[in-house]
């Protein structure tokens, strides 16, 4: 069930938007912030609340790789695979992360702690390679630094 507070936030945001379509992304983000991901049930409820067909909402939800349509871990690791990060050693970093967590990109660790998501660009090419865990940016990384960083996220 959508909560009162979610609906209020969505409606406030919708009032600022040009039209309902424009409000869909923000509505998905609002719901995801509290629940971590968008389940089918939530998608149907949200579509009813916004008055758009579920397909239209899901079309938006599935387009953005930061709207999650599957359950994700407590912490989301975004690893930047843009050209600059790739040149600066993104592949080593990714390999190391995968080994350490025992998951491939797009997967969640069995303990539900981490989800690894590739990302097209984190916008910090000057400090490549970069990853982002939840809202924290970690830049200029070497594989050796990963242990310490991951340790901070329980």
């Amino acid at each position, binding site marked *: 069930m959508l909560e009162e507070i979610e609906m209020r936030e969505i409606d406030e945001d919708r009032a600022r938007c*040009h039209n309902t*379509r424009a409000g869909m992304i923000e509505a998905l983000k609002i719901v995801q912030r509290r629940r971590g991901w968008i389940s089918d049930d939530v998608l149907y409820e949200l579509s009813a609340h916004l008055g758009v067909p579920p*397909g239209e909402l*899901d079309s938006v939800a599935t*387009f953005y*790789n930061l709207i999650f349509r599957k359950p994700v871990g407590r912490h989301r690791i975004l690893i930047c695979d843009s050209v600059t990060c790739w040149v600066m050693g993104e592949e080593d970093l990714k390999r190391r992360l995968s080994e350490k967590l025992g998951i491939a990109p797009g997967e969640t660790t069995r303990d539900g702690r981490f989800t690894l998501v590739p990302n097209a660009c984190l916008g910090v090419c000057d400090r490549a390679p970069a990853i982002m865990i939840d809202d924290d940016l970690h830049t200029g990384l070497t594989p050796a630094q990963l242990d310490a960083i991951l340790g901070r996220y329980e």
Partner: protein
Amino acid sequence: MAIIYIENKPYQAPEGKNLLNACLSLGFNIPYFCWHPALGSVGACRQCAVKKYRDESDTRGQIVMSCMEQVAGGLRISIDDPEVREFRASIIEWLMANHPHDCPVCDEGGECHLQDMTVMAGHAYRRYRFKKRTYANQELGPFINHEMNRCIQCYRCVRFYRDYAGGRDLEVFSAHDHVYFGRHDHGTLESEFSGNLAEVCPTGVFTDKTLKKHYTRKWDLQSAASVCVHCGLGCNTLVAERYGSVRRILSRYNGAVNGYFLCDRGRFGYEFLSSAKRIRRAAKRNSASGAMEPADKKIILRSIKEIIAGGRVIGIGSPRASVESNFALRRLVGPDNFYSGMSAAEEELTALSIRIMKSGCASFPSLRETEKADAVFVLGEDVTNTAPMLALALRQSVKNRAAASLKKNRIPEWDNGSLCVIKDEEPGPLFVASLLPTRLDDAATRIFRGSPTQIARLGQAVAHAVNENLPAVSGLEQAVAKLAEEIARELTEASAPLVVSGAGCLSGPVMEAAANIAAALAAVNPRAGLFLALPESNSFGLGLLSGKPLDQAFQRAEKGEVRAAIILENDLYRRSEKKRVDRFREQCRHVIVLDFIDTATAAKAEIILPTAPFAEADGTLVNNEGRGQRFYRVMDPEEDCRPGWRMLAEIMEYAGIGDAGQWTTIDDIIAGLCAEEPELQGMREIAPPAEFRIYGQRVPRQPHRYSGRTAMKAHEDIHEHKPALDFDSPLTFSMEGFRSGPPPSLIPFYWSAGWNSVHALNKFQAEIGGPLRGGDPGIRMVGSSHKNFEYFKPAPVTPTPGGREYLLVPYFRIFGSEELSVLSPSIAGRIPGNLLLMNESDAKRIGAGNGSLVRVAVADAGASLAVKIDPGIPEGVAGYPAGMPGVEFMNLPAWGAITEGG
């Protein structure tokens, strides 16, 4: 016109038009995917690249997408430049990376735009050796098959379904290389225009599921031009046959009627042709046992001769029979004994509509022209369910305001990406006044719901607001008066206002109000148009033959003046109350039914003669705008079946009536018709006569690659069968004949060198998206060169009866209300139940809820129906599922009682 240079040669092209369109119109071949003439340009697929040069001295040039370039004087381009050729070849190679190698088992194979473009772009060998991405397919209902692996991400499907047709249950999901086109979940595609996906999709993702049931490659199909029989709009179709059964229907482009598309009823209704309800043998009732028994046609003709000799014979025609068949019946029984066979309301509204058109009160746009209207008022018609393709056209009209605003900002009208961004923000005015909720409500600016009287009053108020000399409507509610002012203002300010009405609410005053508004607008704006929908494929054509109303036939029978009735392709139980038809049957000693389906009327006949439906007959249908259009048989009728007119001519010859013995071809009948009805001279011009030849040759119905014809009947006879002969048209049942460029009315299929898909049509058009080369087929039979229109007086308000009476109004469904298409299994799968639509409080009052059975009773008829509560229904009104299978005829709208319990 501007001069543009292609490979340094000058050509004329329309300024401001899209360059890809212009090049194709000039006959050049440029591959494309995301572009479609009706859908405009988005520049997404990058396939239509050409090189553009700054000026004569520029040798390097720049690669541009031709679909996103505007034609301007002095534009220099190259299509053949090696670099741009390589670019195009690499684009298609990339689009094909994930495309499976399944052409041999793909339904699109042999008529696939992707195959054509691959060959055209020069990508002959595949180099991609890696794993291809695959998808799960969806079950999309009875019409469309889904095979996502073949997708090349051109986005045409969603652009058609969502942006063009207003559907909301087909979407694109995900991103990157795993984009998915489908529904949110398995389930039937809801849009009434979903079948067009089979033609819009450039490859085999969306294909015709009914074709799959009896699949045949395009090159093995024998085809002919036809006209849709499932509503009054007369959309043009291509009917395709193999081994004596019709395999599918495609849209036949007509720049003035249906353009590129068809509705699903028109596309999939054809399956009725193979229905178990088809009548194929002549039969006679055994007087002793009372059972129908097949009989030799000669014996039957002899019986008919005797019946006719006995005198007092009347003929009852039909709005689903061709002009020729109705005329032949009229000739057989004589004009005094010829009855149209329409229901009283249909009869009245058809006559009214013809009268209005003849009066020249406004302009009468073609179906396609209605797309160009920039303010629309619909009175009393649920167009999606009664004239579906009109709904598709009106959905385009609401974009014209946004298009005008693009133009102001110098953005071309074909820039569909821009249009889609703003179309929902500046929707054009569309007002819908209807009895019940309509499928077009979601596109409407404002909706008015009321009884026919209230709709007519609103209409008269609008007419008064347009022209204050017209009588004001007294006692109007303030909100309604305000709405009338608003509608009038929008219509007056528009450059091409359009008023739409028809027989949809079976009310004359509503149609009259529509005519008044259109006339008032036309007095100051010659572009003001009126479009009147009629219910059946030949309602208008029958209306021109001045048959008498069915009621008069019943009255004559009542007086004992009818000994025998010949009923042509008509089920009277759909036209009048059961009681009255039963009584009529009892009063006629002999009833002879000519039909191709077994109806309730045929079941009570003494003699049945099987006629041939559209795929097996030639004839003319006149659509709602008075356009006479010829349909051709795609195969010879089997067994005893004959076209109605030929069967009637045989009867006349046998019975020695008139000069009918000389009626051997359809041209003879048309000549006979023109002699009796000078007004219908246009009939001669609709299509070339049977003896028409091109360089001495006929036009073949079979394509050049038609296979197996020497062995098609090898199970019966090892010798090749002689092809059937055709004395009625210049077409032949053969591969031999003249291929390129037959006159438009004769085109049996679209095919051109290098263009095997439906896009071969490009080569048949004078300008892509414009009229066919040689002009769009069909002749408007009713001219309105002079004005003699007198404004209709507002109808008096009928008092509301007291007590527990409800206003019963008809509602129609695209899948369910039309007699023939409901016999098609795919359509049958879409028919909603026979439900009485009611408002919640009304239902409560009689103690009914969703699904509970109630008894409906009006003056002469009654029915038991399940209730469906619909919040859009006004209080005191109930919607009756008129014409649905198993639903009894009621003369509606009428006041009636609804009581709980069946």
